[in-house]
């Protein structure tokens, strides 16, 4: 049960004439919690279902523990799945729901009624729901139903855990609590887990590694830190982080990058063949400062006080708006002039045509800027 690696090679899945997943390659190590992150329709759920066996890929292979399972029935793969709506059967008690996967295979696995009862209780205790076993799903709260769904996914002692947005139906407060517990549970049990979500905060908090997907492909795989600090594509850069990274469109001429509100000097060779360039700066990497130390000046458009932090929307050009995030208390209002300093070490540059990060430009951005 511990540490089962999962591998997907060249997996392609089409529905009619829509390509849901395109030539997907992914390796997940045993015991890892890998999050598939992306917007609706990016193919993350389809990928999960291919691993589960609910969909058969048109091309490619799936390996669980180095065995080719691509065409195996879902029940033969040793996986367990938790669904967004929990899929608890309304006519069965919590106990029966959890016992169901075992009852279905009882003959094959030679489980007696007592064996089943024992395993159900054990798993229920692990999730703290032993007192709820007599109830029907409609008599349970959202959080309790979710635990029953988790228990049901554990009772078969699966090699791989598959989760399809299991927390999105929970109230915001419960969601945070369950999130933390889920992560701990996964670490304690060491089950390889593939987790699908569109919520990037959830992804960053849970994942050992995140695979950011878009339009059926994986754009980048990395630890939460890696995808946050070193995005390889503008899609990843803007999808991760709240508020999203600011992107400014700049013109390139000679050794200069001319951006709305500021200008930067860059050695010529680095800018070969580019007419325009996109510069990305995260709101949290911009600071309010005095005129003398500033890189950019602008006018406050609107201030969003969020309690622990402030988001200041600043117009740095007649039609360029950037967001600045600060935890310092701010006494600004619409129309005020502000001076901003950018942490250029954290800035990123993108090729406007491909969206790829221009990695070698990063160090040179540290250089001076001027208004």
């Amino acid at each position, binding site marked *: 049960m511990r540490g089962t690696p999962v591998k997907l090679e060249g997996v392609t899945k089409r529905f009619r004439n829509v390509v849901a997943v395109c030539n997907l390659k992914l390796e997940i190590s045993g015991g890892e919690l890998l999050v598939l992150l992306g917007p609706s329709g990016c193919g993350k759920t389809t990928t999960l279902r291919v691993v589960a066996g609910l969909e*058969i890929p048109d091309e490619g292979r799936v390996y669980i523990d180095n065995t*080719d*399972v*691509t*065409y*195996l*029935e879902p029940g*033969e793969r040793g996986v367990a799945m938790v669904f967004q709506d929990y899929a608890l059967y309304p006519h069965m008690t919590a106990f029966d729901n959890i016992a169901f996967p075992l009852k279905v295979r009882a003959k094959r696995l030679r489980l007696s009624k007592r064996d089943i009862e024992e395993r159900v209780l054990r798993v229920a205790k692990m999730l703290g729901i032993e007192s709820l076993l007599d109830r029907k799903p409609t008599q349970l709260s959202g959080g309790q139903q979710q635990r029953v769904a988790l228990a049901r996914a554990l009772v078969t002692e699966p090699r791989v855990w598959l989760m399809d947005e299991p927390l999105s139906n929970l109230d915001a407060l419960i969601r945070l609590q369950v999130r933390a517990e889920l992560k701990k549970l996964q670490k304690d049990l060491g089950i390889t887990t593939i987790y699908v979500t569109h919520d990037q905060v959830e992804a960053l908090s849970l994942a050992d590694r995140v695979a950011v997907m878009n339009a059926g492909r994986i754009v980048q795989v990395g630890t939460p830190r890696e995808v946050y600090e070193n995005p390889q594509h503008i899609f990843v850069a803007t999808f991760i982080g709240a508020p999203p990274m600011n992107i400014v469109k700049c013109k390139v001429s000679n050794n200069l990058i001319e951006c709305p509100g500021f200008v930067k000097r860059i050695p010529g060779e680095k800018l070969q063949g580019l007419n325009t360039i996109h510069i990305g700066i995260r709101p949290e990497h911009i600071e309010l400062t005095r005129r003398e130390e500033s890189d950019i000046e602008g006018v406050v458009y609107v201030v969003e006080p969020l309690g622990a932090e402030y988001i200041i929307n600043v117009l740095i050009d007649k039609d360029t708006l950037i967001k600045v995030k600060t935890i310092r208390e701010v006494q600004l209002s619409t129309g005020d002039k502000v001076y901003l300093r950018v942490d250029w070490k954290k800035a990123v540059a993108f090729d406007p045509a491909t969206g790829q990060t221009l990695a070698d430009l990063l160090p040179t951005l540290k250089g001076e800027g001027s208004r």
Partner: protein
Amino acid sequence: MIKTTTKKLIKTILINAVIWALALLWVLPFIGLALVSLMPYRGVIVRGWLRLPSLDSLSFKNFIEALANPLYDMATGYRNSVIVASASTILPLISAALAAYAFTYLDFRLKAMLFGLIIVIMMVPQQLVVVPLFFLYNYLRLYNTIPGIVLLHSAWGVAWSTFFLRNYFKFIPKSLVDAARVFGASDFQIFRKIVMPLSIPGIIAATVLQFTWVWNDLFYALTFLVSKENQVLTQKLVMLKGEYHIDWGLLTAGSIITMSMPLILYIAFNKYFMRGVAGWGVRR
């Protein structure tokens, strides 16, 4: 590994084969009716009908016989069925739409009781109203008249159509009606301009179902229509069956004539038929 998908494929093919064979079996009677009505009877007796007949042996004489021969007179029956079914659809549907509106959007005492009454009426057997109406109709000289039977069918039609349409109206967002009330629209205006246009599918479904129901009726026709000029198609049909000898050519042709109208409606309004019936099983 591939073995499992092949096993699954075989299972799926087998299931499809069985089900499609069943569907073919279900259609067989219709094929039988069509063939026997067109083929010469002698051929049917000697060699059966489950075969491809030669095209020049086919003829419509059974159909012509059934329709035109004054003994069978299905043409008159057809005419009467059209009149009875049409009148018994228009009248109740309009009344039912109004009643359904009242039950959905208006508040009045006895609302629950009256609606309960409607439900009870829907379930009661047709036979329960015959005897007193027979006496009443004789007294009012409505017995053996088209208007007489139309009124009866309309009454039943009103009951179930009201129930049906009210369930349908419930799907219209109440906010649309509330907004109109705030604008100052009267109930008649809301009924005509908002509720009716939005319930067209439901009204079509109720219309085709009621028309078919009345067209298909035999019992009330037998009890309330006795003279040849007034009898409807289903009655004429059962009279084609002889006591001792059955002319299958004639009978099958008559059957096809009788079910022609519901079949045409069904082909044209297939979706509405099935949704109308399916609504019974899904909780609203």
